[in-house]
């Protein structure tokens, strides 16, 4: 069943990123996104563990990048996704008593944006791009909060469902 679940979560992540791409940019900042696809990653982390979360992230960013057809987008998404997932895993393990999913997700969103900015810097090569950093950080707070709440709610509902169908 784990194999099927992996496929489902990756698909959810891909669908979320497609839906998110169809939203107009709410702030005039390059790279400021809702990061909805991270919901799939966080659910994977909460319900299946770190290894699964990384698998989901790798698959959804690579496939998603291929679907979008942009090499830069793939690189940015993959690097930002991996780094933010690893950071979230570390935060989850270390600080689980002090932090709930929501805080972990804010950290994930912040590191996602920063990593994406650094990866974009590798392409643009012009350090002026880092001027966007503070605004991206500020935007990552509400998006991280949203993703965190959404993932927590969905995974607690899923957990009930999984328990009841496990018999």
């Amino acid at each position, binding site marked *: 069943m784990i194999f099927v679940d992996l496929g489902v979560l990756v698909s959810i992540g891909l669908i979320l990123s497609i839906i998110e791409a169809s939203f107009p940019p709410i702030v*005039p900042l390059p790279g400021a996104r809702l990061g909805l696809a991270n919901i799939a990653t966080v659910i994977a982390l*909460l319900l299946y563990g770190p290894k699964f979360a990384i698998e989901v992230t790798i698959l959804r960013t690579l496939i998603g990048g291929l679907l979008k057809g942009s090499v830069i987008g793939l690189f940015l998404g993959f690097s930002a996704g991996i780094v933010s997932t690893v950071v979230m895993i570390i935060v989850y393990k270390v600080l689980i008593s002090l932090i709930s*999913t929501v805080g972990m997700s804010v950290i994930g969103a912040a590191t996602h944006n920063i990593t994406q900015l650094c990866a974009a810097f590798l392409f643009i090569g*012009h350090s*002026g791009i880092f001027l966007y950093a*503070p*605004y991206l*950080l500020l935007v990552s*707070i509400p998006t991280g909060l949203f993703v965190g709440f959404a*993932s927590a709610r969905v995974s607690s509902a899923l957990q009930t469902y999984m328990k009841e169908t496990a018999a």
Partner: protein
Amino acid sequence: MRKRKDPSSVKVKPGDVVIVFFVAVSAVLLLSYFHRVPSRDTGSTAIVEVNGKVIHRIELGKGLKRKDLKVTGQIGASVVRVEGKKIRMLSSPCRDKICVGMGWAEKSGSSIICMPNRVIIRLERSPKGRRIEAITE
């Protein structure tokens, strides 16, 4: 009764507030660090780059007549408008037009970037004493 172990609780813990606070504070600190330089009243120098190569170097200044410059980037032609001390991205072939939405820039240190088209407008402080209002290519 089944004891429910729920790792996905939505209860907000004190650490969350700390995190949000910390992220917000870092953002504000970065902001104050970047904009520490007070811009002088003499205009800035605007540099238009495509793919890292300097295409235009424009001394912005009060009397500068409105001028539109066509800049060819990675995916098409962007138009940069210079007017007095201000500069902006008038149009761009990118999908989201975030660069256009940024509006006018006139303070040194600010920049307008179109990532898809690889066009960057950045404003630097003018070197002292130079009052030549010329557009060079």
